[in-house]
C-alpha cells in the first residue's frame, strides 16, 4: 500500500468521529521506482493532506518532505522540480508491505499483510 492510498483511508467503526488519519506501524517497507509525472503531482498537491502525508512518510522512514505545506508557487514552478520529486517518492514509491494502520480514536489496528490493508470490521464494530 502506498501513501496515495493511505491518504484517503479512515476508520469507519460505528460511532468514531476522529478516524483520520490512520497512524502507521511499519514492519516492512520497500521502495519501487515508477515514472515521474510532474503535472499529475501538481494537480494532486491541492487535494492531499500535507501534514498527514509528512507524518505518514516519516513512519515509513522517509523524512525529506518539509514539515510545512509548501507555497503553491513553489509547486507550480516549472524550473525547480526537486520538491515535486520528493512528493512523487513519498506518494507513489514507498510501499508498506507489513505492519498496521491504527485508528487515532480507538487504537484499533487494521493489519497490513503483503501490502494489503484489511479494513473489514468485526460484527460489533459495524
Amino acid at each position, binding site marked *: 500500500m502506498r501513501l496515495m*492510498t493511505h491518504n484517503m*483511508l479512515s476508520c469507519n467503526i460505528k460511532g468514531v468521529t476522529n478516524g*483520520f488519519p490512520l497512524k502507521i506501524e511499519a514492519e516492512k517497507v520497500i521502495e519501487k521506482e515508477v515514472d515521474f509525472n510532474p503535472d499529475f503531482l501538481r494537480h494532486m498537491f491541492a487535494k492531499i493532506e500535507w501534514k498527514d502525508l509528512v507524518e505518514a512518510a516519516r513512519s515509513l522512514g522517509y523524512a525529506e518532505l518539509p514539515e510545512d505545506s509548501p507555497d503553491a508557487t513553489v509547486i507550480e514552478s516549472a524550473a525547480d522540480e526537486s520538491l515535486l520529486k520528493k512528493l512523487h517518492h513519498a506518494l507513489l514509491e514507498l510501499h508498506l508491505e507489513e505492519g498496521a494502520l491504527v485508528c487515532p480514536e480507538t487504537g484499533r489496528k487494521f493489519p497490513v499483510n503483503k501490502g*494489503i490493508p484489511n479494513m473489514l470490521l468485526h460484527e460489533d464494530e459495524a
Partner: protein
Amino acid sequence: MKLKQLEGLLGDLQQFSNPKVELEQYPTGPHIASRMLFTAENSYGDITDKVVADFGCGCGTLSAAAALLDAACVIGFDIDPQSLETATLNAEELEVEIDFVQCDVTKLELKGQVVGTVVMNPPFGTRKKGADMEFLSAAMKVASQAVYSLHKTSTREHIKRAALRDFNAKSAEVICELRYDLPKLYKFHKRKEVDIAVDLWRFEPRQN
C-alpha cells in the same frame, strides 16, 4: 495502446479459482473490460493520469486495464482475500503497480476528493438484494469526476432514476449495451453458458 493489444493482455490474467456464489464472483471478460476502459479514456479522458478506484475488483481485471492505459494511480477494493491474492499476482505478471485494499466498499469511508474515476463491475443483486444499488451509491460518493459501471439492461430505468434522484448524479448515460457471456461457473447453472444484456453506464457526480 491499441484495443486489441489491451484485450490480449487482459485475456492472460488469472481468474477466480474457487468463485464464491454469495459474492456473485464472475470474471469480467477481456472483451468487456477492454472496451469499457478504452472508451472511458478515448471518449472521455477519464483514465490516463488520473487516480482510478476499482470497486469490487475481484481478480483485478478492470484495475489492470486502468493501469495499462496509464492511470496515475490505481486502487482495487474487494472483500475477498483470495481474489486479492490473485489480483496481486496479476499485477505482478503485467508489471503494473496497483494498490489493493480489503474492505466492504459499501461501508467504506474515504477522505477527500483524491479519487477521480471509479470503475466497477458490481454484483447485480441476485444473491444479496440491492447490492448493485449499494455499490453505485458508494461509488458516487467517492468519485470526483466519473463512475463507469455495468448493470443489467433490465434495470435501466430503475438505475437512471436512482442515480439522478438519490445518488447525486449530474448525468447518467448508457454508453453502450454489451452482451456478458457467463460461462457455467456454479453447480446451479443449468446451461453451459448464458448471455446477459448489460448496460455500460457513465455517471457524473455533482460537484460536492
